[in-house]
């Protein structure tokens, strides 16, 4: 019996079979196969699902996603730009920290206040006998101080002053 080599994409051609081959073929076709049970499909899909349920957590660790090249390129550029800006900002912020001066310290320093000393001098003015026009005006008293009013007409300052302190009796002191 000569067998013709069938091409890879075999097509059933009755003419190439001899009569005996056809008869054998018809006999062989009498043997039919039963259908698989429904339990087969259930088992297969049940195990398929359980297999992927176990591996699901691993997918989050080692899984991968597919991105189009333009999207991946844009994402990469965005990441680089963000990283550059972040580094730059961190550098600038560190320089500013260096130049900040130490906080000023407030120290209270007592400053001597020069107070003008007010010296009140009572001047006894010699009164002429005939001059009674000048009323004997008592020195006005302002606060704790007595202020004497003096007529300065014809007053001439002295070029030289010689101060002699004469301690008189208390009766002349007013």
């Amino acid at each position, binding site marked *: *019996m000569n*067998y013709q080599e*069938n091409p890879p994409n075999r097509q059933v051609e009755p003419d190439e079979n001899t009569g005996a081959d056809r008869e054998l073929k018809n006999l*062989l076709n009498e*043997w039919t196969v039963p259908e698989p049970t429904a339990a087969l499909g259930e088992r297969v899909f049940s195990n398929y699902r359980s297999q992927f349920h176990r591996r699901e957590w691993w997918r989050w660790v080692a899984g991968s996603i597919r991105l189009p090249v333009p999207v991946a390129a844009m994402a990469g550029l965005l990441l680089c730009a963000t990283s550059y800006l972040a580094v730059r900002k961190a550098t600038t912020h560190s320089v500013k920290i260096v130049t900040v001066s130490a906080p000023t310290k407030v120290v209270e320093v007592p400053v001597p206040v020069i107070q003008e000393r007010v010296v009140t001098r009572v001047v006894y003015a010699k009164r002429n006998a005939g001059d009674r026009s000048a009323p004997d005006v008592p020195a006005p008293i302002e606060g704790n101080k007595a202020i004497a009013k003096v007529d300065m007409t014809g007053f001439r300052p002295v070029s030289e002053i010689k101060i002699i302190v004469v301690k008189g009796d208390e009766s002349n002191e007013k």
Partner: protein
Amino acid sequence: MTDEGLLKRAASGDEVAFALLYQRHRDPVFRFTYRLLQSRELAEEITHDCFLSLIKEPRRFKPDDRKASLRTYLCAAARNLAFKHLRQGGSEAVIDDVTEWLRAPVSEEPLRQLLGAEISEAVRQAIGALSPLQREALILFEYEEMSLSEIAEVACVDVGTVKSRLYRARERLRILLAPYFEGRAETDREKCPI
């Protein structure tokens, strides 16, 4: 969608893609395994193992090879599992309950039903009597209508070896089924007197 596309999706958890793959290739794998081992239970078990191993290790299927198709890949996997079972359990295959074959379509005459069942059983036994390698070649050629090169890929042998096995298988079957050849000839003559 191609088998490769469906397999990629199924391997990453797409149940719909897996269902499509299963629907496409379940029957050829089951039929081949059933005829090889002549046991529905074993055929289902091997079919189940084939599909799950395909999903576990999808990279073992290399569609870049021009000769490779998912169908031949699955048949090769089923063949390996079936032969492993045959080696473990001895050369005798588990045979289904004969009474299953007595079931026939209700529309046929009782005599025809009986004759059909008898012929079916005789063919099953005759194919069961072949060596596993001859049986494999015959089943893939006559029932699954694979080409010689595809059978060679499944069996991991060259085309010449496949041809040789087919020839010996057919010769053996003609001897075993000779009574039925004569019977069919008489029946055909009755139908067509010319």
